[in-house]
């Protein structure tokens, strides 16, 4: 439990609690990185369809430096409700998803529920999941 990310996630949770959340649940995330082990995962957690599909704000953003093929993190302090996650594997350290000259992402992209891009990004219905009071776990594959 000494991973710097866990510390920052805990701090974020603390901030959320100080801001006065009535109740909070734990979101346990496991990321399995199947190919390149370099770089970081850039994770964005959304709580509305509008924010997920548009340019809305994520309720949490995480940067996970990749040290092994499996990364586990607990995101505490989220209000129970519906969430969706999208992330990309930042291979080149720019902090932004990179595209080739024809507009195809050159870095892997992944979603909650392991929803897949199939000619289009997965919809909110495909990526969203319920976070109950008791918490929930999601395992996401990246390659």
């Amino acid at each position, binding site marked *: 439990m000494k991973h710097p990310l866990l510390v920052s996630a805990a701090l974020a949770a603390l901030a959320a609690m100080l801001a006065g959340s009535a109740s909070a649940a734990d979101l346990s995330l496991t990321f399995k990185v199947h190919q390149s082990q370099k770089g970081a995962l850039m994770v964005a957690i959304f709580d509305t369809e509008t924010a997920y599909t548009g340019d809305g704000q994520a309720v949490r953003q995480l940067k996970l430096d990749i040290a092994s093929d499996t990364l586990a993190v607990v995101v505490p302090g989220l209000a129970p409700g519906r969430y969706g996650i999208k992330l990309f594997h930042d291979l080149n350290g720019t902090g932004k998803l990179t595209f*080739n*000259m*024809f507009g*195809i992402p050159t870095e892997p*992209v992944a979603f909650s529920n392991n929803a*897949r*891009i*199939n000619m289009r990004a997965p919809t909110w219905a495909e990526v969203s999941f319920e976070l109950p009071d008791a918490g929930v776990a999601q395992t996401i594959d990246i390659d």
Partner: protein
Amino acid sequence: MTSHFQPNRRHVLAGAAGLIGLALTPEQAAAAAALAIAADWKIAFADLEGDLAPRPLQRVHGKAPAGLAGTLYRNGGAKFRRTKGQATHWFDGDGLIRAFRIQEGGASLAARFVDTPKRRADTAADGVISGGFGTRSGPGARIASPDDVNAANISVIRRGDKLWALWEAGSPFEIDPASLATTGMVTLRDDLAHMPFLAHPRFEADGRIWNLGQVGDKAVIWQLSPSGTVQMATPIALPRASYIHDFTITARHIIIVLQPWVYQGDSPVPMTSLTWRPGLGTQVLILDKADLASRRVVELPTFFAFHMTSAWEAPSGEICFEICASPQPDFVIRTAVDLMAGTYTASSDPKLSLITVPTQGTARIESTGVIAEFPRTDGRGSGPNRFTLHATTQAKARPLFQGVGVYDWRKHQDLVFDFGPDHLVEEMVFTPRPGAVEAFDGWIIGPTINLRAARTELHVFDARHVDAGPLVTWAADVAVPAGLHGMFWRG
């Protein structure tokens, strides 16, 4: 079929069964029926269920020429159908790398599927969920880039100690030339991941590689070192969003034929986005290799083509190249779709034609009238091609060709060896005799599928006497589905 070409034993048996007619015993009738099925052209478009371990080929007749040693590498789709679905276009089968090795007078065959994400996903789904050029993707597919539908199935080239299996709209796959095992997908440079890379790269005499990639009316001009390192990847705009399968080069120019089969709309199946607009005519885009911004577009009458030869430039600057031109893309639109449904629909014949682009004035295309596909030239030298090797003689009532032709541009004569209706002729390649200086002093090498015997055969011809028939023919114990393109690697 000439007397030089010995009929095999099964030919004789089938003929005898026909003569016996009503006197057939039930066993003989069953055998005759089996032979009739074996002669069906559909075996050339059937599924191969797994890799082919290396196996010797049996000599049918003749003798391998002294000095000929090397490997014919060939690619082409060989798995089209799964329980829950199938490819609906011939161009969407899983790439299978064949290696026909000729050594010390004998020959062998091995073949291995390219291990692509598409093949893995389709195998796991037991369906064809990762579509392609003319096949729709299905539910559950993961298609984040064109490489997720990359079948690596059009051609194979060898550079140094590596093979590259090539598709068109995505990355090469690296293959070990000895084991034919897939090493992995090739990302030519991190920022160029998943870029299109056509299956007909062109080579400079020093081994440098030029290639083209295309998405609609955008293209990229690739220049790679002989070993495959990117030296340049420059985006260019195309005057129109034509279907492009091949292109060519001269010493100074890049030549792109823009036929009026153009991408319009954004169907999830690329082929159904293409619209044939014959009223537009065919264009030729000519780019200066040293300055890609310097371009010329010339107009030609409407035609469709897959393949062209190396081009050359006269001292005056006039550019010439050969092309296999059809009146329309009916083979790719209809025939290649119907093949997957097990039916044959005839399409227009491609004819060997010469395109001439003067420095000023009107460009022209002149047909030799010779039916030709899979054109290959000597590959040495940069002047006009003296000879053009090609598949020829459209078979009756079944797809593709049954003859091998060599067109002599000086005599305007096509020498042909016709294997007869039982053989489906694939792309043939030329390799020079060691130490040869004269054009086409060497051998023609390539497979046919003997439909009646249900087996793939490998043939070697004297390139200057193709009409005399094969110098040697070997037979495999299996029919490998019809392949597309590849190359011969000496040694």
